[in-house]
């Protein structure tokens, strides 16, 4: 590709040198990984000790939405950020023509699969508090359902009012912030739940997260900002001009 602009000449000319270096690197990594040493063990015991206080019985969910909920908050913001950047890239760039319909097989598959996927997502969300499953998996399945719909050129993201789409995407980040700030106003640290409310709050957070994650993933796939689709020619022209 000419325009990629980052052809690296030296490794391409000396692939063997690169290969040897990387093999050495792998050997070092593997040696360090295998070297026997005092293994301090992870945090399994601490997690188990605090599991009852966390409000859920699934250990991974407890870590994700209680012990390390701040990570999950930032992660929701990363998805939101992905949508922001993809939209800003598309809004100023060229717009692709709508993809053609994929065909009868997909339509049949879709009729069969969509209700099933939503059912599975609901089950995963529900199961998340005790077994494998949870907000991310449910969100992913919802996102997959959205992608399937989009593949069949169902313009559900376009039909959806822009406002509703944007609010849906920001639902989880906003809800997380609200839960965190509510704790602060009551004199507890950020994102602290009261024990008697913990399981309720976690379930609510999970539902919100699953919904927003699903919508974000579908939006990332669609990549279109509905608002700007009407001015393609002018946009193309504008994009070529200087700063």
């Amino acid at each position, binding site marked *: 590709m000419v*325009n990629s602009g980052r052809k690296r000449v030296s490794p391409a000319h000396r692939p063997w040198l690169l290969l040897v270096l990387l093999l050495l690197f792998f050997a070092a*990594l593997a040696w360090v990984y295998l*070297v026997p040493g005092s293994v301090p063990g992870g945090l399994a015991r601490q997690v188990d000790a605090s599991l009852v206080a966390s409000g859920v019985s699934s250990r991974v969910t407890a870590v994700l939405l209680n*012990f390390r909920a701040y990570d999950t908050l930032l992660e929701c913001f990363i998805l939101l950020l992905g949508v922001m950047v993809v939209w800003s890239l598309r809004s100023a760039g060229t717009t692709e023509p709508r993809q053609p319909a994929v065909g009868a097989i997909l339509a049949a598959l879709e009729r069969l699969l969509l209700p099933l996927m939503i059912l599975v997502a609901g089950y995963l969300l529900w199961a998340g508090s005790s077994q494998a499953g949870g907000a991310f998996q449910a969100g992913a399945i919802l996102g997959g359902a959205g992608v399937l719909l989009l593949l069949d050129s169902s313009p559900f993201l376009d039909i959806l009012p822009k406002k509703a789409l944007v609010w849906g995407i920001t639902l989880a980040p906003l809800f997380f*912030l609200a839960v965190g700030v509510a704790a602060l*106003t*009551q004199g507890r640290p950020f994102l602290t739940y009261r024990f008697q409310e913990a399981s309720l709050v976690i379930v609510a957070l999970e539902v919100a997260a699953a919904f927003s994650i699903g919508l974000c993933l579908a939006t990332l796939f669609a990549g279109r900002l509905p608002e700007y689709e009407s001015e393609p020619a002018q946009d193309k022209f*504008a994009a070529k001009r200087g*700063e």
Partner: protein
Amino acid sequence: MNLSPDSSAWIIWPVVVPLLGAVVCFLYKKKPRLAGHFFAVVTCGTSTVLGWQVLSQGVGRHLLGGWSPPLGISLRADGPAALMVMMTAVTGLGITLYSGGYFQSRLAGDSQDHRFRAQEQSFWPLWLLLWAALNGLFLSGDIFNIYISLELVALSSVGLTVLSGKPPSLVAAMRYLLVSLLGSLTFLLGVGFFYKAHGTLELAVISKALAPTPPVIMALALVSVGLMLKTALFPFHFWLPPAHANALAPVSAILSALVIKGSWYLFYRFWQGGGLLAAVGIVPALLGSVAIIWGAFQAFSQQRLKMLVAYSTVAQIGYLFVAFPLLVDSAGQGRDALFYFAISHSCAKAAMFLAAGTFFLQLGHDRIRDLAGVRQLLPVSSFAFALGGVSLMGLPPSGGFIAKYLLVSKAISQDLWWLALIAVVGSGLTAVYVFRAVSSVLSPHLLEERPLLVVAASMQWSALALALLAIVLGIMAPLPLALLEVT
């Protein structure tokens, strides 16, 4: 709000406010500028509260979710962290005021304002999110949380870089993104090795217990390389100049003044424990020395002003690493020198990039040899650019002078003569390329006709304010140094 029993809540506000601001700007597209300014001011206020609290009450700790480490994540506000948050707040406020004028001028100046409006709508939420991520990075006490914050910083920086929409900036952003991802992944692998070695993700424990066992050395090496990639230290600097120089004017300032400081600060955090510093602290110092020389030569040979300023960043990053061997003893003067370089570079470089962006917007180009006469047209910006240059060179009484003074005197007291020499030679080289740019900007060439001024006044004055701050930092040195003592 009632007086809270948890007295450490002020630590989290500098993260929460800009996060909320980003969402509000994303949702409220009608007047993003208004919301952006509001949240920038509030963030600045909460950051000031944080700085004041650290100064008066000492190190603060906020246990997120009420769980103490290693199970939970804690935020830790000590002197260096508070200083970086303050640096981001002050520089960020200046850049915010500039951006308001910048977008206003562009919307007023061009009838094709649809694209500019879209740019501005994307700019504000991305900038506030970046601000929040940087504050989160400075305050975080958990290495996996740092990884997520690093990704937030990287993605929002890339989002800001592509805003200009020019093909060179797109290609530069792609390279920036790939390098950033490589850096993050290397960092994450290092996090894995740290977890294997220590069984915890708490930064304070990890940076204190740097016993040189193989997993720890490997982890530290991986983390360091990842962070050096993101900071653009010498052999990894290739992505920086095109990305910084081709972005919109406020974005260039954000990237050069603030974003690289995030990963540099983490590098300091991982090395500050000192165990391995005596043995291999020389490596970052050597790379930094090469960066100072190489960056200065490259800066000198540039034809475009923004490219010159961007290569100057490559050189100044060298200074941020050159003082690492001085951290070995605990007297703290080496640390003071490092952080003084960081904060004075932040103000000076932001001022220079903002001024260069003003020239670009007014003239439509930034070719150095055709800048003559700009002094007459934009006296305030020209003065700001020159003042920023003064601080970069390290002339008294600027903040850059204090930093170099601390560095040289500490190096001499430790018998590291070559280090002192590098610092002085670097100053000379900086002077050469700064003079080249400044002499063109300030050249007494009279314009035949005065074109219409298209830039808003706030663009000129915010750059000047930052440049003046870079100078004043030299006079008010006791205050930041007192803050740094709180550890």
